[in-house]
């Protein structure tokens, strides 16, 4: 492998890990705080992608500017879904939330199929594919922008959870629901907020992805899967873990992909199994 290729691959991995961290961030939050493996996460991502596509096609809204819109819309959607549906089964066995979020995923995907058809879409802007060159390495603007936005959102979520009163209430609820309730935390509201934030982050990821890959209503499943792997690799409980998980995932996928692409998923999942056996709490997760 030449040094030019090696440095390009390293940059590719860094750029990919940014977007994947954002893909997994909301999923990790919901899982960590509420113990819900949210199988509809990928569908929320796709909704964000479609919103961005629609705003761009109909009103020429720049995909980066549509990120806040996606986030607000998905926050509202997530909040309502949690309030109306998931709160009903929150104390039920894990399987109930599995089924419910799985059902939601199917519902959302089919609604998207109905409204947007199964056509493949992507958002192309004037700066799509443009980039700058440092030595042998090419850095596309969009991927760099996606990395910056992702990191900003990861840091913002970290600051929110650790610094703000509400953020601490969310963390407290995740640690001990009964103790939190005793101190006056409104668990239902906190759960709805958490789920809403998770959905909002999925929306942001969807907006960014719409500029990077082509999508149709069925794209979500593969991103739910990636989010799951990243959370298991990195461990739950801290936004930094998500970054670690995303970096490990991207490095494996990109480096293995450059020489043995046919095996890249097999090796990624192989590492997943290995981590589960050796360190079930994830690479950076705290042991319980």
């Amino acid at each position, binding site marked *: 492998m030449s040094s030019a290729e090696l440095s390009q691959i390293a940059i590719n991995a860094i750029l990919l890990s940014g977007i994947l961290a954002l893909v997994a961030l909301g999923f990790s939050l919901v899982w960590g705080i509420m113990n819900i493996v949210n199988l509809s996460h990928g569908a929320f991502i796709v909704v964000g992608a479609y919103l961005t596509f629609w705003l761009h096609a109909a009103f020429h809204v720049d995909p980066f500017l549509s990120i806040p819109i996606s986030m607000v819309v998905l926050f509202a959607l997530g909040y309502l879904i949690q309030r109306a549906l998931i709160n009903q089964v929150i104390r039920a066995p894990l399987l109930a939330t599995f089924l419910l979020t799985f059902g939601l995923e199917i519902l959302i995907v089919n609604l998207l199929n109905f409204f947007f058809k199964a056509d493949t879409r992507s958002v192309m802007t004037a700066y799509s594919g443009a980039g700058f060159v440092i030595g042998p390495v090419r850095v596309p603007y969009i991927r760099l922008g996606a990395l910056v936005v992702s990191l900003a959102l990861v840091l913002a979520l970290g600051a929110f959870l650790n610094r703000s009163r509400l953020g601490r209430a969310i963390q407290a609820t995740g640690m001990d629901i009964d103790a939190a309730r005793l101190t006056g935390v409104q668990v239902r509201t906190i759960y709805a907020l958490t789920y809403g934030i998770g959905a909002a982050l999925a929306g942001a990821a969807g907006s960014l992805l719409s500029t990077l890959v*082509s999508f149709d209503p069925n794209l979500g499943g593969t991103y739910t899967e990636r989010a799951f792997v990243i959370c298991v690799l990195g461990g739950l409980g801290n936004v930094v873990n998500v970054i670690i998980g995303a970096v490990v995932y991207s490095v494996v996928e990109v480096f293995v992909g450059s020489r043995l692409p046919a095996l890249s998923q097999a090796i990624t999942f192989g590492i997943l199994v290995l981590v589960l056996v050796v360190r079930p709490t994830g690479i950076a997760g705290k042991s319980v």
Partner: protein
Amino acid sequence: MKRTGFYSALALGLLLALPAPAPAADNTIVFGAAISITGKTAKEGEYTRDGYQFAIDRLNELGGVKVGGKSYKLALKYYDDETKPERTAQLIEKLINEDKVNLILGPYGSSPTGTAAPICERYKIPMVEANGSAESIFAKGYKYSFMILSPAKLYLRGIIDAVRAKDPGAKTVAILGENESFSKEVAQGAADYAKEKGMEVVYHELYPSNAQDVSALLTAIKGKNPAILLGSGHLQDSLLIVKQSKDLGVSPKAMGFSVGPSSPEFRENLKGSADYVFGATQWTEALRYTGDDPWKTPKAFADAFRAKHPNYKSIPYQVAESAVAVIAYQKALEKAGSIDPTKVRDALAGIDLSTYYGRVKFDARGVNIYKPMAVEQYQPNGNKYTVWPADVAEKPALYPMPAWDKR
């Protein structure tokens, strides 16, 4: 004892009284199909269904099919296989056993076709399939499955030929394919053909299905600086490869794909980045075939289809090949003079038709190796032209593709 006898008699009576499974109406031949209406290939599934239905409707308008002096109407009974090959197999079984369909039309895609074929074989019901071109399906000695389209290994040949006609000096080719039966065969077929033509295959790798990032492969390819970059996957893969090639400044002299460019979505998604890209296609409406079928020429077929489906601007080849599967059945039924599945199967094995879709004839395995692949290219005026084979080309191919930063 008496009682037992009574109950046995009662049971027997009930059994006899049970209605026999409803046979299809006397004068209707029902085609059964499991098609991907949802899932990864939902779009292609829609093309497939619309193609089948269009041909069935047209033949019914013309009075149906004459079999042994009797006129039959045609009908389509289909289920959604959700792009899950194992579901396809279950549905084919259900269509044959419960719905009692007469004949099977294939699903969309090689993997589902591969799971449908053994079921048809077991029940001795013929399947004419129009959307699964992996030859591996036909290496198992099935007698009841027939492939109407050019097989996978021919897919990228036309692109290599078209480029070599322009530039005999184009000597290196990089191939990346999706790790899935059809795309693998396409990639292997292209690699073999390139070597046969004295070219060097500088890169040949497979990426996993559902890949969302192929930057690693493209970075490796960039270092090899190939004259031709060929991709064999599906629409989303082709879009991803073009986008990431632009991201990474991978600029071969020609870029071509087995699947993707033929769909109108290719340009809608890529806009100007689609220009100069070659696409393999089973069929285009610009081809100059004449045939013995209700439409006779590709142009007439396309116009008639558009009149019924105004939402289609250009007609995807999946529509044409699916429709011609119904025509193959029509001719075979007429020839067999019977709707007995085995007799229809024998008639299919012997047909040799000229159609708007090109020649339809099956080799001993049931594969239509007699029709060549065509090549299309997007050109900077925003249109797509058939540029190969040369004798039916609308326009000459544009070559080389300018580097990404020089457009």
